[in-house]
């Protein structure tokens, strides 16, 4: 049965949302209801509350209408400074994602023979405690793992952090943000010694030039892109530059479209830096006052790609910094002349010069924007470094309309994964487990004896799943994410329950990840529980529980707390009754006085979010900037006060071009790049259960270049087979759809669990952030007879 007929009948049956406008309509509605139809809610009966959107990292404010414990409508919050009333199609259709007919409502145990058994929460929690304790006893702290999410609320992430690091003495805690934002984190950390951007969304109105590095913003951050478009509509001076490996809807709005060969953005950025220095378009007083220069390990053989030879099981490369200088940088960049860069990148020298003029024009505010194109990159940290370098050398940083601004893909990648620090090496507020003083501070706040926290970083995501596949990790808990769709090179991680390891998965719907779990737990989602998210611009947003979760579904944080209690770690969660506010205030104490200051819980409850650092109740729009950041005592300019290791200056890094891990050859002649579409969010487990979104893009496809398609005898709509060294699958070909790859490149979105494109991708990763590169591997397209 197709959706059309089904939804058609639903609309017409009892409970039909009859729009009553005319007298005749109203009479008809009354008549239908009188015949036993269920009355649909009307505006006057509703309770309205606030929440950030559940989907991307933008953090749009929505008003949520609730009737009888169920969400019945949302509207864009006109008073939200983020979105000013606007939402994207995913946001407008938010309420329906909660009510898919296959919501998980009860804990379910899957036995080795495949039998599924509904069990009670007590049985489920006892089982997890037993399995995790057993793994700890047999294997020690490396034998357990928790894989979390940038969709975790602050409470979920903080509870996980406390239980794993403060309770089990393990650091095997990592989020899916490792697949998403880790390179941006390491970019900020290596240069400013503090994570997250200095700018904010007001840059979209204040800036003149918006340079999008591999970033399809019109589809991935549509509401923020609308702010740029509105600026452009009002101010003809505004220019949008789209640097890309594929034409997208964003390209249609660009004043300049610059197409480079996959992975050569490193060379392009270095080419721009070369011209800036040669042409004297750098800000020397700013450099002398605020910057230091650093250089890392550059040897390709030593670094590798994290997926070949002995790196294929464990990748622990560690960069080492040496001091450098502007003079050395000039020599280092001598190789990156426009002619040579044009040869490597495929970008005409004139366009490289135009980009250098744009960055070098001191009279114009430049905002660089990037997301997955730069982060999911085998040299993603380097690429982050080079973009930040462009702003540092030109002094275009820390003021309205001039900043490097990294966009995030998940609603609390910043608030939870990065700020709470649910990464294998991290603690809250920029602290790391490797530093004794950081461990001591955490132990003190948590009331734990010194030495409780393990100083050895745990597995990063890729090594965590490799270790689980080997059996070195025995017990693993996956929450709020769908790794059996989203991990690269998926065939490596195939498993069946009952293989001697224990996998528990908490989610709201059945997914390919719950399908391989030994225990599946039903979670409450979004406004079915109280929460806090932190968005891309450092804005912390709180919401109350507004609706009822279905069946026995519970809050993710509660699940951790209850297991911790069963493992004798109840002292970590000492609060009676409603623990949300005291837990948040304890977490907040990590952030105060160190430039990461969060607002109080009460202040967050009564506002539409505030951007940290929040000092004396006031938020900060521009970090490090005099007149904005309360930690800066200077009267003008910037002060990179967090970078103690660089003498409170920011570091410019010299980073060379390295080629991608796998490049097309005779056997696999095409680049495969993967990504999202506007209508679906990540692996589609939520958006594919909303009919309007599902029908907008019902299935994944492979975008082909028209000339390539002609040459292969393939037409739009044909089914083709796509094959890489790791697998093959059939897909529908799309030619001249919304995205148009250049010759030699194909694109496949990853939202469709029935065609898991990550069975074909390569698990090569960034040398520093350990973030996988989902954007570049080699494939071939086979025509089906």
């Amino acid at each position: 049965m197709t959706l059309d007929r089904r939804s058609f009948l639903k609309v017409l049956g009892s409970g039909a949302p009859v729009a009553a406008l005319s007298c005749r309509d109203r009479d008809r509605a009354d008549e239908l209801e009188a015949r036993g139809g269920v009355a649909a809610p009307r505006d006057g009966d509703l309770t309205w509350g606030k929440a950030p959107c559940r989907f991307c990292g933008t953090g749009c404010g929505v008003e949520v209408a609730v009737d009888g414990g169920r969400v019945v409508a949302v509207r864009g919050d006109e008073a939200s400074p983020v979105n000013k009333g606007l939402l994207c199609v995913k946001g407008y259709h938010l309420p329906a994602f909660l009510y898919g007919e296959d919501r998980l409502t009860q804990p379910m145990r899957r036995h080795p023979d495949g039998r599924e058994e509904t069990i009670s929460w007590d049985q489920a929690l006892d089982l997890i405690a037993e399995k995790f304790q057993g793994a700890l006893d047999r294997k020690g702290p490396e034998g357990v793992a928790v894989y979390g999410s940038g969709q975790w609320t602050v409470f979920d992430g903080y509870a996980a952090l406390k239980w794993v690091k403060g309770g089990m003495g393990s650091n095997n805690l990592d989020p899916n943000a490792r697949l998403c934002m880790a390179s941006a984190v390491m970019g900020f950390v290596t240069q400013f010694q503090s994570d997250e951007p200095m700018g904010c969304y007001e840059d979209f109105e204040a800036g003149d030039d918006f340079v999008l590095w591999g970033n399809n913003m019109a589809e991935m951050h549509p509401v923020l892109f609308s702010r740029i478009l509105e600026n452009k509509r009002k101010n003809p001076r505004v220019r949008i530059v789209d640097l890309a490996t594929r034409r997208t809807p964003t390209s249609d709005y660009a004043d300049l479209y610059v197409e480079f060969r996959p992975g050569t953005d490193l060379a392009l950025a270095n080419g721009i830096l070369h011209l800036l220095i040669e042409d004297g378009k750098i800000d020397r007083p700013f450099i002398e006052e605020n910057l230091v220069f650093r250089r890392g390990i550059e040897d390709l053989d030593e670094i590798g790609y994290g997926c070949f030879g002995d790196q294929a099981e464990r990748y622990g490369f560690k960069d080492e910094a040496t001091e450098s200088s502007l003079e050395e940088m000039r020599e280092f960049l001598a190789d990156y002349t426009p002619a040579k860069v044009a040869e490597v990148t495929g970008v005409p020298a004139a366009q490289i010069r135009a980009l250098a003029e744009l960055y070098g024009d001191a009279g114009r505010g430049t905002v660089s924007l990037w997301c997955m194109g730069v982060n999911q990159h085998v040299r993603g940290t380097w690429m982050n470094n080079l973009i930040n370098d462009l702003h540092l050398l030109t002094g275009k940083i820390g003021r309205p309309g001039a900043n490097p601004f990294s966009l995030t893909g998940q609603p609390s990648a910043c608030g939870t994964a990065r700020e709470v620090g649910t990464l294998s090496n991290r603690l809250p507020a920029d602290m790391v487990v490797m530093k004794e003083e950081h461990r001591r501070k955490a132990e003190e706040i948590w009331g734990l004896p010194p030495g409780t926290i393990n100083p050895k970083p745990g597995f990063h995501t890729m090594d965590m799943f490799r270790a689980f596949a080997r059996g070195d990790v025995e017990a693993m808990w996956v929450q709020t994410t769908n790794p059996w769709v989203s991990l690269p090179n998926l065939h490596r991680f195939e498993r069946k329950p009952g293989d001697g390891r224990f996998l528990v998965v908490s989610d709201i719907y059945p997914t390919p990840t719950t399908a391989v779990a030994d225990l599946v737990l039903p979670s409450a989602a979004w406004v079915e529980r109280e929460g806090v998210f932190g968005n891309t611009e450092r804005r912390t947003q709180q919401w109350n529980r507004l609706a009822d979760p279905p069946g026995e579904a519970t809050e993710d944080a509660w699940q951790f707390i209850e297991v911790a209690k069963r493992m004798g770690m109840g002292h970590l969660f000492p609060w009676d009754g409603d623990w949300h506010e005291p837990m948040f205030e304890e977490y907040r104490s990590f952030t105060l006085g160190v430039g990461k200051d969060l607002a109080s819980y009460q202040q967050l409850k009564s506002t539409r979010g505030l951007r940290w650092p929040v000092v004396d109740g006031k938020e900060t729009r521009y970090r490090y900037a005099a007149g904005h950041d309360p930690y800066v005592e200077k009267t003008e300019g910037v002060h990179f006060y967090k970078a103690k290791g660089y003498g409170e200056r920011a570091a410019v890094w010299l980073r060379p071009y390295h080629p991608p891990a796998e490049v097309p050859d005779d056997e696999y002649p095409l680049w495969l790049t993967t990504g999202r579409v506007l209508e679906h969010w990540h692996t589609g487990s939520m958006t594919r259960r909303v009919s309007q979104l599902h029908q907008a893009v019902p299935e994944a496809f492979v975008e082909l270049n028209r000339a390539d398609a002609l040459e292969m005898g393939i037409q739009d709509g044909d089914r083709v087979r796509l094959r890489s060294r790791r697998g093959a699958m059939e897909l529908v070909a799309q030619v001249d759809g919304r995205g148009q790859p250049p010759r030699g490149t194909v694109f496949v979105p990853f939202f469709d669990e029935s065609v898991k494109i990550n069975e074909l991708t390569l698990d090569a990763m960034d040398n520093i952030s350990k973030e996988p590169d989902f954007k570049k591997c080699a494939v071939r397209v086979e025509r089906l007879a």
Partner: protein
Amino acid sequence: MSTRRPKGAPRALTAFAVFGLWSLGAVGCGGDPNEPSVAVPGVAGAEKTAALVRAERRLFDGAPPVIPHENFGAACVSCHDQEGMAVEGVGFSPPSPHAETVGLSAISNCRQCHVFQEAAESWRGNAFAGLRQDLRRGRRLHDLAPPVLPHGVFMRENCVACHSGPAAREAIRTDHPERANCLQCHVEQTATGRFEPDGVS
């Protein structure tokens, strides 16, 4: 009124598109104060009104409508301009109600909110029952008072898009479109209980 033929050769219409084109004509052509209606299968005596058709295009009252026609490959604003136009072989193309909305303009990205619909397999069902449009709330103080707006103004700044011209349904059509400043007499009356912050900078 201009007449325009959509650019691009129409592909095979899906069942949805056929339904959408029919209903676009039913709503948009105007001239029939009784609003054409059809029998609803399975519900004795029930007919489908244009208002119901409107509801079917929205997840709930307040959600953006899906696009009820196929993709003609043309820019949306080439037909959905400030006045709207009859499009040969399709029906009347209603004007855009988004005249003043921040971020929405001739260069804006219509399809970030309005999406085409294709027939889809592998649907798993959804039990969402959304807010329905309701005019049972008091609409005017007394018989001679101007009615209040039963909806917000945001995203609906161009009042005449829905309340005047061929696309306007008879029930909500104004008899004084020449009086340009609608909000001078008709004020917004939306739901109470909006979240009120204190002191957001």
